[in-house]
């Protein structure tokens, strides 16, 4: 009986060792991210070369998700040093910068992304976010209206036009664009509130 128990324990131990050896760090990291265990998801990448571009990008992203914005900036900056034309790194960098309200620096990187990809949606949206934060209403109005034809079904761009118009005192244009927002989202709180 004791020999049977020992044999079974040995099988279990071998199986566990075999499973451990098979853990894919990438798969493990994605799994832990989905479970909101960001620290563990970062640690799962420890076996990967620290200069691996994808790992660096991923560390930037995971640190952003857990709210470690300065660490996130460090990793995205490192990713840019590895690959200076990476739009993923450039646009990734704008996320923690926006959270830290470093508007001008975020705008700098959004503009650099647009130099390589003139109609990149995320770069335009993040640039609009900085223009709104800096109260550059004229610039925001012109910018959002220029981008809107490229993305006619996007409500976020319509909102930026509406807000800028309101701040510039053009209530007629503000109402026009808030109505466009309601065509896409009939229950949109901000649009309904403005038009009441």
């Amino acid at each position, binding site marked *: 009986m004791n020999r049977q128990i020992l044999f079974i324990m040995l099988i279990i131990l071998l199986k566990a060792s075999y499973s451990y050896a098979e853990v894919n760090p990438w798969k493990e990291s994605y799994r832990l991210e989905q479970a909101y265990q960001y620290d563990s998801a970062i640690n799962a990448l420890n076996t990967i070369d620290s200069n691996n571009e994808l790992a660096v990008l991923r560390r930037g992203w995971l640190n952003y998700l857990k709210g470690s914005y300065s660490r996130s900036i460090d990793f995205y900056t490192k990713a840019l040093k590895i690959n200076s034309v990476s739009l993923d790194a450039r646009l990734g960098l704008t996320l923690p910068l926006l959270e830290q309200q*470093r508007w*001008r620096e975020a705008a700098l990187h959004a503009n650099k992304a647009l130099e390589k990809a003139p109609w990149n949606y995320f770069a335009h949206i993040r640039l609009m976010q900085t223009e709104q934060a800096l109260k*550059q209403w004229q610039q925001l109005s012109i910018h959002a209206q220029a981008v809107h034809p490229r993305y006619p079904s996007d409500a976020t761009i319509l909102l930026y036009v509406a807000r800028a118009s309101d701040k510039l005192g053009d209530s007629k244009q503000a109402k026009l664009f808030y109505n466009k927002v309601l065509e896409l989202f009939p229950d949109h709180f901000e649009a309904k509130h403005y038009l009441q």
Partner: protein
Amino acid sequence: MKSIKKLPMPLPCANLLAASLLLLQILVLNVLASFSNIHAEENNWLSNHTIQGYFQDYNQSVFRKNSFHTAYFYNTDYLDTTQLGLGYLYTYVNQANKASITEQLGYLTAQTNLYPDALPGKLNLRFDYYTGDANSEYRSSSPPYHFISEKNNIRITYLHLGFIDYKKTYYTDLGYSQYRDSIVTRTRQFTPTLAFGWNNSYDWLQFRLYVIDLQQQTGIYDENNYFSIESKYTHWIRNQSESNIEFVRFTWLTGDRLLATDPDTSSVYTNPDIQKSSLSGQIKWKLSSTVNALAHVQYDKYHSDSFKSDYQSYLFYFNLQFQQP
């Protein structure tokens, strides 16, 4: 002279010096890092120029009649992380019996913002330095009457560590300043500050305590410790398209304040009389995307320990700020 119990300094001096040196070191390193940054292009520096002036009239003062002031400041900001500035301040004080004071100060400031992940906001380190002199001219009291000139070298340093949360609901700082002149006086000033914002940060209420410790050489002043509290309410205008007004602000001071350094206005009160109370109002206009204007009126009550008398002053201030487009 009154027997005054000297209050202990809020912090041991050696620890304060060490903390100040550490903060200065961090500030200098961050400023240097801004200059060496890989993307330190010219347009990452945002600059502005400010010219200001005020006229101050004294009422019921034995010695002071009125004063005139003008100043120029240049400030530049690198991507919300580092700010550098310099300025020149000129003040002329018209006194009784044809006496006058001409004061000229140079001003330097350096600030850096830090964004540690451990805190839910940003830290601000700031260092200000004022240097210059005040030339007093007065008539001799006995014949043969002639004018006597007296030069007073002035040095003021200011250092603070501030914090504001990302949601912009509160702000706090601790400031330390030293005032020294070559004739009479040396002061140490502590200014703990706390401010609260609400209404999406369109409204702010700030309280700043001024704790001033005087080290006087002449015994002119009756006391060596001065306490006052400054309260400041600011309301930012939401819809500026109608009036171009950016904000309105009211400030009131109660208590006793002497030779104070005010970091909010980058000004120093070099009037050697005790400021007993103050009430002021400010309006700032955004005239265009690159030009701002600010008007300020202030009423102060002063007490002169030298002449054992009280007086008031009315101040009218205006500035224009030109920002880089």
